[in-house]
């Protein structure tokens, strides 16, 4: 079995002391920022990107991946104990997890969340190992027109799955694409939209935009709200769930894992969508839907398994196609490029150690996370008592150092502040930043592939839908179907329900 041979090789790489250390650092950091509300994986990974420059590519990816799925573990702790989502993807965990905590069952809720996540993590690791190689095989045959259509599909799917108005989300993508092409045009060498500012000739740094729109914006928004926390720390005594809890939660864990793995692969998917979807599903299949929102253990088990599964399977499009499905994956692509590795299907064949090592490290990381999150839960709970007024200046210092150190330039910090303000305006106007970030990173790639495709077809715009390019045609038809589906009143209502109902 080639699969097992590959996985075995991956484990061989992943358990080397240095990689174990970075997986551990990633998991600790991930749990930390997961527990702390007000800082998410996007801002954290963006902050650490400049530092990864000094690491080898595998260690860098292992650490950054650990932050993403580690945050899914940590987020549930805050949701259950404080009723604040430590992470956006644990919003739905608040509903039943917090109720369980109020009933004195915080321990079982935390345990089910961690064990469910662990199970989901193991399954998702296998899903990546099985699904990625054939996908990469197909992707190797892609030409510029296929890539262009794939990116259109990815961006459309991302907008469909974002919440809020669809047309606003599409406009945000276009906005991101436009910001993405600022800088030197690779074909003609012309400086575009740089306004004679030399710092802009290399374009606006993606890390800087992500830190502004997800980091500073988040801090400003948090400062608007008054601090109010009620923590059930004293009640976390009995961790182990009862037999009955196990019986009720294992089907939910299975369903959450399956749904999360599937939703994670979709462009625009990932942890957030997976947890929302899983909660709706659990409520639907339950014979006692009235118990949801009042401390149903399935309402914790399902979404928590799903968000971890989704976080991991969202690596599939990134690793095989080089296309990010969410903002975190866009940063991962940034990390690869910093290391001088062009993301795409060739990564797996050219750097098998990197590919399989990363996958194996996810399983190792999940094991670490269970240990970090269950026996050491008391330590994380203590962290929650640190007031936000100590936290945000610290976060700001790290962001400012991170951005400044990119090229020792004050202008980069200014750009971060500008995008922070822009992100604030967008938040007030209910314009989602995630589609914009995806557009931003895909902008130059899309232009490049569009140009090549048009050159090859001698300017025929119908090349994307010609029968000689069935894959390209299929992507565009799929995008159209998605758009029409969301446009239909019945489904639009449903989509709104999924996002509104729970929050």
């Amino acid at each position, binding site marked *: 079995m080639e699969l097992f041979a590959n996985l075995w090789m991956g484990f061989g790489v992943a358990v080397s002391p240095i990689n174990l250390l970075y997986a551990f650092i990633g998991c600790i950091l991930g749990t930390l920022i997961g527990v702390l509300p007000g800082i998410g994986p996007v801002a954290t990974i963006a902050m650490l990107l400049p530092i990864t420059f000094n690491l080898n590519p595998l260690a860098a990816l292992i650490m950054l991946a650990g932050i993403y799925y580690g945050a899914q573990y940590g987020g549930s702790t805050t949701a259950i104990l404080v009723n604040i989502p430590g992470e956006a993807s644990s919003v739905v965990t608040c509903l039943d997890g917090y109720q369980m905590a109020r009933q004195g069952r915080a321990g079982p809720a935390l345990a089910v969340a961690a064990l469910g996540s662990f199970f989901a993590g193991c399954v998702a690791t296998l899903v990546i190992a099985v699904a990625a190689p054939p996908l990469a095989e197909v992707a190797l045959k892609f030409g510029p027109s296929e890539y262009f259509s794939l990116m259109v599909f990815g961006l459309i799917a991302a907008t469909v799955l974002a919440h809020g108005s669809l047309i606003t989300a599409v406009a945000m993508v276009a906005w991101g694409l436009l910001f993405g092409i600022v800088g030197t045009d690779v074909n003609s060498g012309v400086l575009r*939209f740089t306004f004679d500012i030399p710092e802009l000739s290399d374009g606006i740094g993606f890390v800087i935009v992500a830190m502004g729109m997800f980091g500073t914006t988040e801090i400003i928004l948090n*400062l608007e709200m008054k601090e109010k926390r009620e923590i059930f720390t004293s009640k976390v005594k009995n961790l182990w769930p009862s037999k009955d809890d196990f019986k009720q939660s294992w089907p939910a864990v299975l369903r959450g894992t399956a749904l999360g793995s599937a939703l994670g692969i979709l462009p625009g998917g990932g942890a957030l969508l997976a947890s929302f979807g899983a909660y709706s599903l659990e409520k639907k299949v339950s014979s006692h839907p009235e118990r949801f929102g009042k401390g149903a253990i399935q309402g914790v088990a399902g979404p928590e398994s799903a968000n971890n599964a989704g976080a991991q399977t969202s690596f599939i499009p990134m690793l095989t196609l080089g296309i990010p499905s969410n903002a975190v994956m866009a940063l991962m692509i940034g990390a690869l490029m910093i290391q001088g590795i062009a993301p795409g299907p060739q990564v797996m064949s050219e750097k098998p150690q990197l590919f399989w090592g990363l996958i194996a490290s996810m399983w190792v990381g999940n094991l670490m996370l269970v240990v970090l999150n269950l026996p050491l839960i008391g330590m994380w709970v203590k962290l929650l008592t640190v007031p936000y007024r100590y936290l945000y200046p610290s976060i700001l210092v790290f962001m400012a150092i991170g951005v400044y150190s990119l090229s020792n330039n*004050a202008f980069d910090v200014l750009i971060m502040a500008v995008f922070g303000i822009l992100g604030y305006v967008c938040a007030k106007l209910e314009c989602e930043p995630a589609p914009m970030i995806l557009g931003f990173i895909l902008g130059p790639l899309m232009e490049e592939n*569009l140009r090549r495709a048009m050159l090859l077809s001698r300017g025929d715009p119908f090349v994307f839908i010609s029968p000689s390019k069935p894959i390209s045609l299929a992507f565009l038809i799929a995008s159209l179907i998605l758009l029409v589906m969301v446009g239909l009143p019945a489904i639009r209502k449903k989509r709104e329900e999924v996002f509104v109902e729970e929050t």
Partner: protein
Amino acid sequence: MKIKSPKDFWSGLMFIGTGVFFVIWAVVHYNMGTAVRMGPAYFPVLLGGLLVVLGLVIFLGSFALEGPAVPRFNFRPLILISLACVLYGYLMKPLGLIAATAALVFVSAFAGHEFKWKEAIILFVILMLFSWLVFVRGLTLPFPLCPDFVANCPIR
């Protein structure tokens, strides 16, 4: 005409504005080229046009469909947090890491609900030591510690 959805009204305007700017700037300054050999202006004009159309739909829709009001802007944290970052960046070269960190910590602490000098000073000292140990000593980032005019900086 009455604006029924202020959020859409303003976001529509924002998109139209950006789109129009990018299209005009591209057409005036860069070469369009042809569909076969696209010039540097081609893609921006395409995207800018799309953005204008989308923005118009959102803008016009704001007169037809009911929508929520724009929540009030809270300028204190917005301005102070942004200012804190900018100060950090622009003070680093002339005044060094210590002064830059101080500016960032104190200005941003001032953006919060309650400001206490004692807390802010302790926070500054901790963050300063941490930045110095981890970033300057550990990761060897080339940050100056003291202002330019101090000839012999006591810490390195």
